[in-house]
């Protein structure tokens, strides 16, 4: 069975069809996906801006991370849940869409980006977080994060344009 035909089967299961044909659920799930951007990407953006010392430069970046991340994680949980349901209900169209594929690739790369930060720079955070100059690696990670999230959002919008 090819991926495409599996997607066709998936979106035609009763629950997926129910979501797709629902006056209430589809708009609610899609609306939640978009508005939960504020609870996820919106918070990450603020943290990236802090890494670049563009916001809250006098506050400890580690403290901001500790205070903000507990709220961002459920936010991303909502994004993955609603995103998964949207894919479930439109699997075939999503899979065939170039914009969707780019979006998924970028999400993976964003995960890698976060992992690199976690492994390489987080352990030594107290050393560089109060200094005026930000380590080059941290700057790159923050800029990549901001840029890639913008493209992810744009791909999501352009994907809907195709459907």
């Amino acid at each position, binding site marked *: 069975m090819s991926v495409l035909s599996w997607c066709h089967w998936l979106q035609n299961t009763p629950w997926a069809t129910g979501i797709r044909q629902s006056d209430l659920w589809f708009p609610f799930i899609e609306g939640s996906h978009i*508005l939960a951007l504020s*609870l996820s990407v919106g*918070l990450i*953006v603020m943290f990236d*801006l802090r890494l670049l010392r563009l916001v809250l430069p006098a506050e400890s970046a580690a403290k901001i991370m500790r205070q903000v991340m507990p709220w961002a994680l459920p936010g991303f949980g909502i994004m993955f849940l609603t995103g998964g349901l949207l894919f479930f209900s439109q699997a075939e169209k999503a899979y065939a869409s170039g914009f969707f594929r780019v979006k998924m690739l970028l999400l993976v790369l964003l995960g890698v980006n976060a992992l690199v930060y976690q492994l390489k720079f987080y352990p030594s955070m107290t050393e560089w977080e109060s200094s005026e100059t930000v380590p080059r690696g941290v700057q790159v990670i923050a800029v990549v994060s901001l840029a890639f999230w913008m493209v992810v959002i744009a791909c999501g919008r352009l994907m809907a344009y195709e459907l």
Partner: protein
Amino acid sequence: MSLQHLWQMSYDSHAIDILRNSKYAIPVIQSFHLFGITLLLGSMVLLNLRLSGIGLRQLPMATLSRQIWPWAIGGLLLAIASGFLVFVPDPARYAANYAFRTKMAALCVAVAFQFLIYRKVVRSGAAESGSRRNIVVACCSLVLWFLVGWAGRAIAFLG
């Protein structure tokens, strides 16, 4: 000059025609609208979590609001500018859409609330505590801004 005349000016305009007929222009502009919304609503989430005392308690309210407020305004301006560019090529359609009208009304209330009441509360000394008044103000702010967001989504679905 009636509204219909005003809208017709857009349909007659050659410059706006270019925007209207471009295949990708509107979706790209809508992406910028989403960037603005993400900045604005993300800022509102952070400020209101702190104001209500539910989260971010280790960050001082005064510093948080002073630093984040400009980004909230930036997001709002980006959303308004991009929204205007989506509206202008097809004003009659949007003006007749009930969800759009609701969104505009909610936007006015949210902006008024933010600039008149919210700013006063945040700048007062009492903003540090998670008092009941602060919780109510924080809830109102979030409800109003998310209402604008939901009304925006309803434009395509409810009409």
